[in-house]
């Protein structure tokens, strides 16, 4: 927000220190990442397959039986 709009306002020491640290308005400088909405009808490429271990398979056997 524009502080220049209020000529009566003065920066207090902690606020000034903060302003020097922060990128803008309470947050660090932006570092964007793309987050595309996933298509539920389409299977994306997997990073690789992890097969469940013996302990997990045994637990599933108990669950089913």
């Amino acid at each position, binding site marked *: 927000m524009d502080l220049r709009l209020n000529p009566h306002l003065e920066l207090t020491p902690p606020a000034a220190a903060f302003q020097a640290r922060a990128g803008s308005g*309470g947050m660090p400088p932006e570092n964007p990442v793309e987050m595309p909405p996933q298509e539920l009808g389409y299977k994306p490429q997997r990073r690789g397959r992890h097969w469940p271990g013996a302990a997990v398979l045994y637990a599933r056997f108990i669950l089913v039986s």
Partner: protein
Amino acid sequence: MTIYGVYQMLQVVRFASMTLLQGLMIFFFAVSLGWIAFAAGSVLAGASKRRDPTPGSGVATLTALVMPIYNEDPLRTTAALRAMAEALALIDAHRGFEIVILSDSTNADSWIRETLSTDLLRNSLLTIMPVWYRRRWQNIARKSGNLEDFVTRWGGRYDHMIVLDADSLIDAHTLQRLLQAMQTDPDLGILQTAPQLIGATTFFGRLQQFAACVYGPVITRGLSAWSGDSGNYWGHNAIIRTAAFAQYCGLPKLAGRKPFGGFVLSHDFVEAALMRRGGWKVRMATDCGGSWEESPPSLIDVAIRDRRWAQGNLQHMKIIGAAGFSFISRIHLGVGIMSYLSSPLWLVMLGIGFALAVQSHLIRPEYFNHDFQLFPTWPRFDVELMMALFWFSMIVLLIPKMLGLVRALLSRRIRRGSGGVIGVAASFLLEVILSALYAPVLMLIQSRHVFEVFMGRDSGWKPQRRDSGGTTWSDAWHFHKRHMFLSCATAVIVWFLSPPLLAWLSPALLGLFLSVPLSRASGSESLGRILSRLALLRTPEELETPPLVARRQELVRLGVAPPVDGLRHLARHRESRLTHINGNLARPADPRGRPDPYAFTAEQKLKDARSLDEALAWLTPVERVEVAGDARLLNQLALLPDAEHPLFLI
């Protein structure tokens, strides 16, 4: 278990001469028994689980402690964050962590309180870790949209994010362990902790807290055992690999109208399934402890939260068939759906039982079904077998609770903290009885929720009440009078039709009949205190408060409550005004040709007002937000006089 139960049920009624109602009864019985048998099987599977491996230390990374908030009490949220940061500093593990508060607050006063409290938090943690704060102007897609906005704008800065709820607490060793697990396993996308409930003071809160303490660990252990790397995510108290989350967990907007269409409400299960679909591991850390959250204080608060959750989970019916989801991810989604559908299923089963009683009372049995029949066909209903089946179902239902009790009795910590063997056993019995009384009330409430969702009614988004404000008799009466009337009417009709059936239905009807006093009692702090003094429903955390929890309580107690009327405070305190203006991102510009009308009306009202009181009385809640977000309007507000600050002093 289900096959055995259904086979026995078929013996109760003669399969060959089964009526339509009996057939329906068996169908719903099979589904319900399958549901409780699944829970029992899951807990039994947990017994096979080995302890989680202890992770080593990995390369240095940057992790955001992310807390999305929505009109919460900032004194409590900042106290929790400060306590966690201080705890990390105490073990010299604070480097590489940053606090990020993501506000979606819609109330101007809440927002102002947040920025002022965040500033205090920032100053208190200056030497420990940075504190960031961002409030969104548009609450698109609620909490999931809040996180998505953060990831898309600042996500590149962080390797991981630990997502917290407003009432979450995670101790330093657990935070460190979560981080190390991510650093040492590059395929791990989400690691979910199993939060314990703390801080309950009301009767119902303590009931939930004790249940979570005794049964929670065996349930989560079972879940973790069979889900393996296809675990689940509960939306908070979990660490997430930011890049993987960004790449694979962007939520789609579902086609169709609300409540099934639109934004995904219960995003966590879906994000876990998407993460798994992308080939990342989603695991549950069940052995590390040190992770807490709070529970709603009363039955009505649980019902309000459940309405939102019901809609979110039922919405998953549109998602469960998505391409590429692992079978286990589909089971997680299915379990969420069944958590809510099981209530109407139970209700339908009771209805069929009632209809069968009416049928046997009003319709004469057909003794000779065929033209050439020598002997009559007697109506068959094997009471002894039915009793055996009832006890079988009860055992299946109680397996998770019994295993939880055994674990609690074997745990020295729980025995000591919950009143010894007698205290644990007595609390267990009390919990079972009270749960049985509350269950039919919750069944009717959830059935109504499911009905409303299918009728297309949206839940809205109300902030969760976290204090113990109590439930008045009037609130309880308005909320539960229908439940009470229904129980009375059913009892009278069933008494005339079949007194033995009334005996079968009495546990459910008793809970409904007592719903008003039960609901009133649920929010009572004095009842909670009495139980605590009697060492009933007590958890180890009450006797020995964990240092982190104690520190948060201390910070809340010692903290200066932020101003109630935020705008008035900003108008009269120049430094606070500066802090607020400086601590927020600039308001995004309105789209060309579509200016925000509230900014204009707010400005005009400030111009017309002759005093601060007049301006504050005229401004609507939306206009108050506009004023709080505009330095120029705030300054205009500050120039208005009031009784304490006449014009010549401003």
